[in-house]
């Protein structure tokens, strides 16, 4: 009798899919979205004067509506974002346009954040260095430019090396920022109590620069509703980073929709208090001439320094504000790399980005060409801006507004186009007409966005010119890439790298993953057909993520002797993609495994016994049927079991539409 070595199981790869709490999700988004608090007020002040805190607060309230729009879109598309939503609603051409605007937004996120961080540091150094008898002569903008370039180079290197952003770090940063913000708010309250205050004017007074091309249209008066829309448009950049919600949603843990709502509420409250209230308080405490001059680039640093109290205490508060700001803003630079890389990879999956851009780094396996382009563009923008945050802010609003407008318009269209699709959450204010929930609320949001977008096109010359140029450049790149990919597809087989990279890890044997299984229960789910995952769905719907490890096992049939170099096939990738998508949908952690064997039931039994699972849940096989599957599993189970022992009870289940069959393995 000869043992058949080819039946020995080889664990080839694992791909861990883990999910994060709503706190962590909120902190990731706030590191980007909340960071605008450090520059939005100063930019708005420069554009339309002392009325700015009202409009920043208005934009933060409007952020609540936009978060609502994104909540509905996230619940519809687990892997959403502007590109996916717009493509579904308006088709590929509009999707390419919207994603081009979004890339412009991401490309500017890095420079505006890093330059602002540099300006905040420079403002602190101006106060600190003289105390140490150091003669500080470097202009703050020059310092900011070099600091921003250094930060960009640092994150370029990190992203080339594939160092992943840690949600824990984001949470720590937001925790620190919150503590600093609370102290700042309390102290500001005391200062206002001591000094008294008068509310800022409501009417905006636009600078010549902020009027843009509207000076050529005398009928466009800067008063009344038009003035409000203009000022709103100049403040809208405070909304930047909201798209991150769509990118992060897939990572939110079970119960996904509930946690999304909690994250959204957290973001909204934080934004109102942090960006809205602190900006407002700054305007009440800092004299208007100082906001327009000394503190236009570092408003919150100025707030800390202008509080009532001894010099050393104010300096300490300023240091804390600058440190927290620098951490948050620098984090946003990384988000810009990760975000633009993610968005470009997403569109590449759809075949609208040429493979040249997606070439993988020979050592780190990262999309280094995309990262290089992002870094070079950002450094160029930093140097061209000369550290002028107002200039950057002007341009920044273009991408923010257009991507939000496209997203909202698409959500309205989808109400009609996908009226039969059940929403887990719907933006409020709807009229039910037949089977359609007519989106009155969404339409109001779109009207506001369109008004601001239209007005910004006229008032922000730099934003319009640069935005249109960048957007069209990216649109052309996407368009040409798509054509080239279509031509290529006629001659070549599909590129193996054309899909999302699975996180592969080759292991010597199954037992090496045991230390990673820390939960009290473990369920093994054999899967082979991406279209037959009802059993996985059932498990994801019923088990508690907190106490159950879910292992999805693809037991691949491999003939002959195992070489240890077996590779994933297209069908395996397709299966794992379907598994990952389903796990993302339910926000539950799964551990997909691929093993090679010439007997899948042998593999199932071996993996189950080695790991010590509590349950095996199979889908019904169309070719054999549930009974035969259980017979084969029972035989493999018995063959591998060495002794009767006092082994724990393991349940084997076969699930199919409306039925299931259970069996206890002995």
């Amino acid at each position, binding site marked *: *009798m000869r043992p058949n070595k080819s039946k020995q199981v080889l664990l080839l790869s694992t791909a861990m899919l883990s999910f994060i709490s709503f706190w962590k999700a909120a902190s990731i988004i706030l590191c980007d979205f909340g960071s605008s608090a450090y520059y939005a007020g100063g930019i708005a002040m420069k554009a339309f004067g002392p009325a700015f805190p009202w409009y920043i607060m208005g934009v933060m309230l409007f952020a609540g509506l936009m978060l609502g729009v994104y909540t509905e879109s996230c619940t519809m598309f687990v892997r959403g974002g502007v590109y996916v939503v717009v493509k579904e609603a308006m088709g590929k051409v509009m999707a390419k346009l919207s994603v081009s605007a979004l890339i412009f937004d991401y490309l500017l996120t890095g420079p505006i954040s890093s330059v602002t961080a540099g300006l905040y540091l420079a403002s602190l150094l101006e106060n600190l260095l003289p105390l140490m008898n150091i003669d500080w002569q470097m202009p703050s903008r020059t310092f900011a430019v070099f600091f921003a370039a250094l930060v960009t180079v640092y994150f370029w290197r990190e992203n080339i090396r594939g160092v992943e952003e840690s949600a824990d770090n984001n949470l720590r940063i937001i925790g620190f920022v919150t503590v600093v913000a609370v102290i700042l708010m309390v102290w500001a309250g005391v200062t206002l109590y001591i000094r008294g205050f008068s509310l800022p004017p409501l009417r905006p007074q636009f600078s010549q620069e902020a009027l843009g091309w509207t000076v050529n249209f005398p009928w466009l008066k800067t008063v009344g509703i038009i003035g409000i829309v203009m000022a709103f448009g100049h403040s809208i950049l405070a909304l930047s980073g909201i798209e991150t919600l769509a990118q992060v949603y897939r990572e939110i843990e079970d119960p996904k929709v509930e946690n999304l709502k909690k994250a959204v509420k957290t973001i909204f409250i934080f934004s109102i208090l942090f960006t809205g209230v602190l900006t407002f308080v700054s305007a009440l405490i800092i004299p208007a001439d100082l906001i327009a001059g000394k503190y236009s680039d570092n408003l919150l640093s100025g707030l800390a320094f202008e509080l009532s109290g001894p010099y050393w205490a104010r300096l300490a508060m300023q240091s804390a504000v600058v440190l927290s700001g620098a951490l948050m803003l620098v984090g946003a630079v990384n988000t810009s790399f990760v975000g633009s890389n993610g968005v470009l990879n997403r569109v590449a999956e759809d075949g609208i980005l040429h493979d040249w851009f997606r070439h993988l780094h020979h050592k780190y396996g990262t999309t280094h060409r995309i990262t290089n382009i992002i870094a070079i563009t950002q450094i160029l923008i930093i140097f061209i801006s000369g550290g002028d945050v107002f200039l950057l802010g002007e341009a920044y609003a273009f991408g923010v507004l257009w991507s939000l407008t496209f997203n909202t318009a698409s959500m309205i269209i989808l109400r009609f186009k996908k009226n039969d699709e059940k929403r887990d959450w719907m933006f409020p204010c709807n009229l039910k007409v037949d089977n359609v929930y007519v989106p009155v609320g969404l339409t109001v949001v779109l009207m506001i966005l369109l008004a601001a977008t239209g007005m910004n096109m006229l008032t922000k010359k730099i934003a319009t010119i640069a935005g249109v140029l960048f957007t069209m450049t990216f649109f052309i790149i996407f368009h040409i890439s798509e054509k080239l990919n279509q031509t290529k597809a006629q001659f070549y087989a599909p590129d193996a790298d054309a899909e999302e990279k699975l996180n592969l890890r080759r292991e010597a044997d199954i037992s090496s993953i045991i230390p990673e299984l820390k939960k009290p229960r473990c369920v093994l789910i054999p899967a082979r057909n991406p279209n037959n995952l009802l059993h996985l769905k059932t498990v994801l719907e019923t088990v508690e993520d907190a106490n159950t490890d879910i292992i999805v096992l693809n037991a691949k049939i491999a003939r002959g002797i195992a070489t240890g170099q077996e590779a994933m096939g297209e069908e395996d990738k397709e299966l794992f993609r379907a598994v990952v998508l389903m796990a993302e949908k339910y926000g539950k952690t799964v551990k997909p495994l691929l093993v090679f064997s010439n*007997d899948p039931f042998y593999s199932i039994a071996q993996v189950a016994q080695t790991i010590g699972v509590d349950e095996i849940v199979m889908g019904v096989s169309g070719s054999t049927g549930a*009974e035969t599957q259980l*017979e084969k599993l*029972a035989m493999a189970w*018995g063959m591998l079991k060495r002794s009767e022992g006092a082994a724990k009870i393991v349940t084997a289940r076969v699930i199919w539409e409306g039925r299931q069959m259970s069996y206890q393995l002995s």
Partner: protein
Amino acid sequence: MIKQLDSVSFAYLLKPENVFFLKGEFSRESAVGFLTEKIYPQLENVISGKMLSQKVAEVESSNQVLETGFYIPHAKFTEIGRFYMALGLLPSGFNDQASGLTVKAVMLLLSPNKPVFFQKHLNMLSKLSRIFQPAFIETLLSSSSPEAACAILHKAI
């Protein structure tokens, strides 16, 4: 939902008259055919020989030899009310074309095709697969008679 949690107990089913030493040249088909023929007299009042052969052959086509070199051809019949077993021990063994394994022990198992028996059926398959490891098969092959083989089996079970 079908739930079956009965325990297994089959030692009494295998009597010396159902244990056979298959000496000489055998193939997978001929070994299974031999055991089917030998077990048939116990069933002739309930099912026809043709039906028995057809059903066993049908299940056979999708059945696999175990890694241990043990083979369990099995079939379920609604007409029968209890389990039937026949063991074939092949000192020379036969080479299974599908798996490339050498098979020295074949256990034909016939089960009642009723939900209430399915858990027992699975338990039997599992238990047989566990007991019939290569060393145990060699011990059975070295036994002098069906009675001795049966005694070894009963002891193991």
